[in-house]
């Protein structure tokens, strides 16, 4: 499917995505979170917080 980066407007292809997945725009490198898949809705991924980790 064709995806449009909400940050830079680049269009790129992905085979399969799932809600909650983080993808990276191949043009601007920004991380995007998949909010919906049908139709595809993307948003900037949440910033890493201080207590994130393993």
């Amino acid at each position, binding site marked *: 499917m064709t995806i449009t980066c909400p940050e830079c407007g680049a269009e790129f292809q992905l085979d399969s995505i*799932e*809600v*909650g*997945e*983080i993808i990276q725009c191949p043009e601007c490198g920004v991380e995007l*979170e998949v909010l919906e898949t049908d139709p595809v809705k993307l948003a900037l*991924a*949440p910033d890493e*917080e*201080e*207590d*994130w*980790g*393993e």
Partner: protein
Amino acid sequence: MGKPNVGMLVSQLREEEKLLLRAFASHGIDPVRLTDRKLQLELTDLTWLQEMELDVVLDRCLAHGRAGIVLQALDVAGVRSVNTRRAAVIADDKVECSLILGARGIPTLRTFMAFTVESALEALEQVGYPAVMKPVAGSWGRLLGKVNSPGAARALLEHKRQLGSYHHSMFYIQEYIEKPGRDLRIFIVGDDIVAGSYRSAEHWVTNVARGAVSAPCPITPEIAEISMRAAKAIEVEIAGVDLVETPDGLKVIEVNGGAEFKGLMSTTEYDIAQHIVDYVVNSCSDSQSSSLNGTYSASKQSMANGE
């Protein structure tokens, strides 16, 4: 029993979580996703949680604070989680981990806590320079500091004190090990050591999240024993135990409860995600699998080594 009703606590779906979902699908299970940012936890009435009729929840939450609260609610509601809330809280707390490892006589790095700049400088003199300072709660190599001299230590301590959060004014001070450019990540599921890797980097911080490269690590009896002892002491069922090679033998750096296995996957053909999922699913019907008193499984060690 039939198929268990499984929940998965997540912040976002990384490669590992997608693999776990596929592994659950191999059991015909589509876990209920508990996405931390979307949750509204009514703490004074957990009926909503009990009505979900979850048999088990696999914790894959990135945010330690949020995970601790959700696991606490699950615990009160009588829902089993993997790891348990107690294990997750201990694993996320470097102070408690150091206390437990030390008390159990499990080789680990010499560690001090101090609460003022002056007492921290005195503790650093006891540890010796260089030394390492870490946040009491933190991960991915974030905010680690290697201090080479009293002057550098004072500057770092003064800066940490100004950071605002009181956590940064509790100084966790650890001996620095001149490691051979690598440390070890040993992955444990229940009573099995499923894989191990060396993590190499030119930088002294060898977290995969910081760009370290993973390579296969054969599981020796010494590695197996210290890793499993550490995991059992911290009470984690699923864990990534980090070890360092020292002149005095292996020592435990830390035990990670929400362990990532992306780096490990590049070193072994063993299906770590499937092993985790099989363990979680089986734990619903086999109370023995949640026992914390098991022994290391040699068969899984052989599989991890590709034998």
